[in-house]
């Protein structure tokens, strides 16, 4: 086995990690928010729609992770096309995927906790729903920034000639 054969391995590993960590974080987060939401809906079924919005907010990280994984697959040619690359390039892809993987995981869980707290607002002061949505959305900013960096990095790495 040539050392450069490891390039594609690391690139796929990075993509897999992005989908895996961010997805796991979102699953945990949406589940956490769902548990709290189910309790609230037991008390007042008419709030289902709003509870669902709050529950879904930590779900976006999983989608971002999936997105990064998919873009990586397209760029490295796993979905058809040639997938030759050097070890250095594979490692670069790996590094590019890391922000989404790590920030995606932890921000989804942090956002879910904010969502759960916001459900408290929804139960006690339903008229302040607009504000209750903003607290979880604040956390999401960092997932978006990570998504952006990962995306730009993957695009950039694809253009580097090594």
């Amino acid at each position, binding site marked *: 086995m040539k050392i450069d054969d490891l390039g594609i391995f690391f690139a796929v590993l990075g993509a897999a990690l992005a989908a895996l960590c961010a997805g796991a974080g979102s699953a945990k987060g949406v589940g956490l928010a769902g548990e709290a939401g189910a309790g609230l809906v037991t008390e007042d079924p008419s709030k289902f729609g709003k509870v669902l*919005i709050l529950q*879904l*907010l930590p*779900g*976006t990280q999983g*989608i*971002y992770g*999936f*997105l990064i994984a*998919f*873009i990586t697959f397209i760029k490295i040619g796993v979905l058809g096309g040639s997938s030759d690359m050097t070890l250095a390039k594979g490692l670069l892809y790996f590094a590019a995927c890391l922000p989404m993987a790590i920030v995606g995981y932890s921000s989804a869980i942090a956002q879910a906790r904010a969502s759960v707290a916001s459900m408290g607002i929804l139960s006690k002061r339903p008229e*302040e*729903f*607009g*504000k209750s*949505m*903003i607290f979880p*959305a*604040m956390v*999401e*900013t960092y997932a*978006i*920034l990570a*998504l*952006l960096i990962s*995306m*730009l990095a993957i*695009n950039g790495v694809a253009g580097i000639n090594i």
Partner: protein
Amino acid sequence: MAMLQMQRISIYALKKDRKRILELLQRRGILEINDIIQEDNVFHKMDVTKARSGFEKHVVTANEALEILNRYAPLKKSMFSALNGRKVTSIEDYSAFSGKYDDSVQVAVDLISYSKEIAELKAEIIRLEAQIVMLTPWMKLDIPINFSITEHTKSFIGAISKEWSLEAILDKLKDFLPVEVEIISSSKEQTCIFALCPTTTADGVYNILRSMDFTTPGVSMDKAPVEQKVDLENRILEAKTAINKTVEAIVSLAKYREDIMFLQDYDRMRSDKYEVIGQLTQTNNIVVISGYIPEREIQEIEKSLNKDFLVAIEVEKPSEEEDVPVLLKNNGFAQPLEWVVAGFSLPGKGEIDPTMIMALFYYMLFGIMLADAGYGTLMVGVCAFCLIKYKHTIELSLKNFLTMFLFCGIATIFWGVMFGSYFGDLFDVTASTFFGATQLPIIPPLWFFPVDKPMLMLAFSMVLGLIHLMTGLVIKMYQLYKQKEYKALLYDAISWFALIVSSAILVVSLDMIKSMMGPGVSIPPALTKVATIIAILASIMILLTNGRESRNPFKRFLKGAYALYGITGYLSDVLSYSRLLALGLASGIIGNVINKMAAMPAKSPLGPFFFIIIVIGGHALNIAINALGSYVHTTRLSYVEFFGKFYGGGGRFFHPFQMKTKYYKIKENMKNEN
């Protein structure tokens, strides 16, 4: 872009007219009752708690009765019934209802008692069924269970624990023969027996049986179990028939459903009215109704009141200290976003209503984040359909919600065309998969593909963000100007505006940024020089003035330096708009991914079928998730970045005395829409 001017109105009326005047005001819903007269020897307030609790009780009764009706005689509801809003009814119907009032209350009470009856019957059935279960082991016994004694014999009917054979039992009782034992039934847990012995040996037999854990059965009846079971079954049947009859009785009352709904609304309104009466100050003959009213409504209400009643009306401007409620008034374009503004806070003293300016950016930002002509068309179609089909009956809040998404949808179409996204790249994928097209894209973007030029898109997002933020600063300048805070206007607003704009120019002229943007962007050197000078001057001004509340010059300078450090806040605000790129790319690329997945099985015989299923399901999911994301993040950009520059809020909602009904709304004359 305005707040309605509020006036304080005081209506002095005869006490005998007060209920009718209040009813008129309640129907109009334009006056917030706010009494300022203190109680004294002449003016006093009325205790209305008793009357109110009576009405409240009826409201609860009616609500419960309606729930019962919905359980036994549910109304068929269409999917769009929520769009229908409350039923409109005339004031004549309202007055006529007092004739039906007592009957309606009676019907509601009957419904509740029927429901209780059913609950009792159901409990009875469960009890009877339990008895049947207890009887089951005794079915073979042909005498009543409570049979015990004849002239010369004594019988024992009961269960002994564990399984016993007849021989074993007889063996236990061998000292007391003759004794007749019969096993009725047996299981692992217990053996049910019938034992008969002469009265002389009864005590001895009983003691032996006791040692075998003999227990008498839990049921005691004077008929043989078989007959008894038939009896019980008949009683269950009777109870079931009774339930059916009661349900029929409930269903037959379903024709009064609307009356009960009306009853609930009627007494809700009366309860509210009495709450207001309790707040009013009155003398023996006169009552004073005082509160806030939008200026434009005064003439109309004065006319109506003078027509029917003997009243004196006084209008005055609220004084500076008064906490006047806020009511926003905007045109049809911005009005749907009033509740987004209200969701943050209503404008406080000295602030303008930001709805109109926010609306301009709000729709645009939403459009850029979703940016797909296909999704936009769907949104516009659905919202327009609902708004047109139900335009007469839809409730205002729902109408605003749908109108907001209608405008958001239009913006989404616009940016979708600019960025060349139609359900992702659905047209391209369909054409190349099924028709072998090679000239792609079918519909080129009007501007550019964000996926191909992410850096351009990033720059565009940030420039847009900068414009958004600077608009906020300009509004701040305007507010400071209106409040005549000229110093603050120069030091806190204009200096910052100059600093941010000039710094932005300097940033763009940096070599690093230039290389990222490509060769198209260049700033003339003269402009760079001017920007440098302005930036330095503005920084010095901020450094020297932004700590001006401190007298100590050293402290003042430090505070100024800290304020200048606030420029990092602007940097992060601008960076925050990169979410426009991220969310725009996310919705676009996920759309493409869906299309790609749909095209994978397309070559198989059932390919087109799978293609359609995946495309419909996938895009439905994508539009739901990304519309939600766009809405949340547009709201965030408006609340945090935009409002943060100029808007504090703190205004109080206008809570007019009005009909808080659930099912009906009463129109004074059918042509008057408000």
